[in-house]
């Protein structure tokens, strides 16, 4: 088990704009993000947020959905209409079943329901902050000596073919698309299976343990790491 700090070399530091009207939450967010080494700008109103987002360059925006005067949805729609494609993560406490769809349709890249675990926020920011620089069309993925052929749907490690079930393949593909970055349980559920609810069974753990049995066990070193209280991370074995 590795702590987050050990993987700092893999982590990219980002310039983040946080737009959140609740002072306590804003403080919690900026302190947490800065502890991780990110640089933050913090504003409490949608209009200030829009002004900053238009005038400065950020790697990612964290925007509360409910803001006085100019709400988060409008802020993102305005940005997108001005052809500013900075990744946006919505925070909301509404918990509405349609909010996710509405937020994504407005142009947000991800969506997180308050209250949330900070590790979940970090993982998601890393995932979307990186997205803009990654080519979308890839035919193969490679992490260390682990290789995945996306066309033939085959996996091999150090040249040894690994036979995966389709669900295991999908989980591994998502991990490998985020090498060196924490992938939370919720992200796996949402992105791999489109489960937008919290399962009561250990469905994620079962798949991870099956993957480990095939990807790690037969080999000398482990690539799939469990990050305590956060999620999973795939990285080249040391």
């Amino acid at each position, binding site marked *: 088990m590795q702590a987050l700090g050990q993987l700092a070399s893999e982590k990219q530091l980002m310039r983040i704009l946080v737009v959140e009207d609740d002072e306590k939450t804003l403080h919690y967010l900026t302190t947490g993000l800065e502890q991780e080494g990110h640089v933050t700008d913090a504003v409490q109103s949608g209009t200030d947020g829009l002004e900053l987002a238009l005038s400065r360059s950020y790697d990612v925006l964290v925007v509360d959905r409910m803001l006085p005067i100019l709400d988060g949805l409008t802020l993102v729609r305005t940005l997108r209409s001005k052809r500013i494609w900075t990744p946006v993560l919505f925070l909301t406490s509404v*918990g*509405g*079943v*349609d909010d996710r*769809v509405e937020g994504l349709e407005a142009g947000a890249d991800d969506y997180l*329901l308050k*209250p949330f*675990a900070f590790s979940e926020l970090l993982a998601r920011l890393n995932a979307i902050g990186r997205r803009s620089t990654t080519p979308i069309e890839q035919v193969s993925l490679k992490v260390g000596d682990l290789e995945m052929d996306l066309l033939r749907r085959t996996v091999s490690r150090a040249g040894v073919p690994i036979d995966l*079930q*389709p*669900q295991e393949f999908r989980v591994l593909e998502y991990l490998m698309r985020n090498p060196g970055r924490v992938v939370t349980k919720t992200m796996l559920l949402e992105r791999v*299976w*489109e*489960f*937008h*609810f*919290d*399962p*009561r*069974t*250990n*469905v994620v753990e*079962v*798949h991870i343990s*099956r993957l480990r049995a095939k990807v790690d066990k037969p080999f000398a070193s482990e690539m799939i790491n469990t990050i305590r*209280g956060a999620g999973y991370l795939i990285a080249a074995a040391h």
Partner: protein
Amino acid sequence: MPPLIENIRSTAFKLAVRYALFFALSTVAIFAITYQAAGRHLLDMFHASLSADTRELIALSTREDMAGLAEEIQERVSQGGANDDYYLLLSDDGQVLAGNLAPTEAFLGWREWERPIRPGSSEKDHLIGLGTKLPGATMVAAQSVIAMSETQQVILNTFAWGTLISILLGLAGGYAQSQGPVQRLREIAHTTRAIVEGRFDKRIPTGGSRDDLDRLSLDINRMLDRIQDLMQSLKQVSSDIAHDLRTPISRLRQGLDALQRRPGTVVETQAAIEAALKEVDIIIDTFDALLRIAQIEGGARRANFRRVDLSAILENLTAVYASVAEDRGHLFEVEIEKGCQLRGDRDLLTQLFANLIENALTHVPVPSTITVKLRRAGKELQCIVADEGPGIPEQEHDKVFRRLYRLERSRTTPGSGLGLSMVAAIADLHGAMVRLENNRPGLIVSVTFDGMGQTFDSSWPLMTIGRQGAQLPVG
């Protein structure tokens, strides 16, 4: 309100009054036209008769002479005696040669005028006359039109009475007509007032007449049933929430309290914080689930319905959960007919069946066979999730869909008691029917949707289903 005033204020009565007024107005219009036409006709008759009379007298004057004419006129005046016919033959030098009109009443052409019936009398006679210039004299022939006025008066009176009677009949009829509906509305008002006062079990009495008011009453009663159900479940839920959240909140408090009184090592403190966060997460999850159920029940989500492939949803779900089932030592049987489509919400349908599959996975002792099937049956799509576990006692079948309801034996296993409420809410949103049946042993949960797209009889074998399936009036 006194019944008379209530009746007068009733819609039926107002309608009757409006009709009576409308009828009266049309009667008046018809009368006015008739009256006008009759008057004109009578006047024309006077004109014709006076013209003919004048022509006859002129002919006489040319055949004989002025003296002969005067004689004839005088004869007519004395013969008639009546007040109806009037004549005047006035010589150019101002001498009355014959007639019963005053010399001042000489004129030429047509004229209408009034004169006293007798000299000095205040009673007036209305005359119409034609004056003609003869050689050396002026002749006026006139008739009293008082008879015509009298006829018109009679017509007027007749119509006035007729109109009055028809209005009165209309009002009386309207009043009588309004009696029935007013009585029914009084009953409805009585019931709604009782409900306002808190007697929620009151219902409007309905007859078998199936008229509009009866249908309205039935609808109102249905609405009241629904409101009563909602109130009941609201009451139930609020006390259940309070009760169910007490446990994690007191555990949380105990943990924090212990930590404050006896701070341990860093590792111990970390563990205590982790335990506290876990309890908080349980509380948040329960709230989120309750909120979600409430929102689903609100029905707004129906606006996002799209055509979804239920077969694909179930294939994805069963592929994911097969590993979990296998991991726990269960047999997982899947029979999914391809291409079963319906209008719905993909995410929610996924959650519905995930809940059912997870229920089976968590409540069933190992080893057991868990079966997931989907098939078309005519226009319907039938999906079942069956297990061979302890099942649910039949007397509890309708209770398990309540929020936070948990069977006694599952109190100790993890779960919020909201899974089946969520299932019921999502099914209801999709107009689907959820049934619990006995699998002997185990439980069969069947969900039946109205499908869309192709429908055909499938050769897929029907499974034997227990007879005592509890039909669930979801929603």
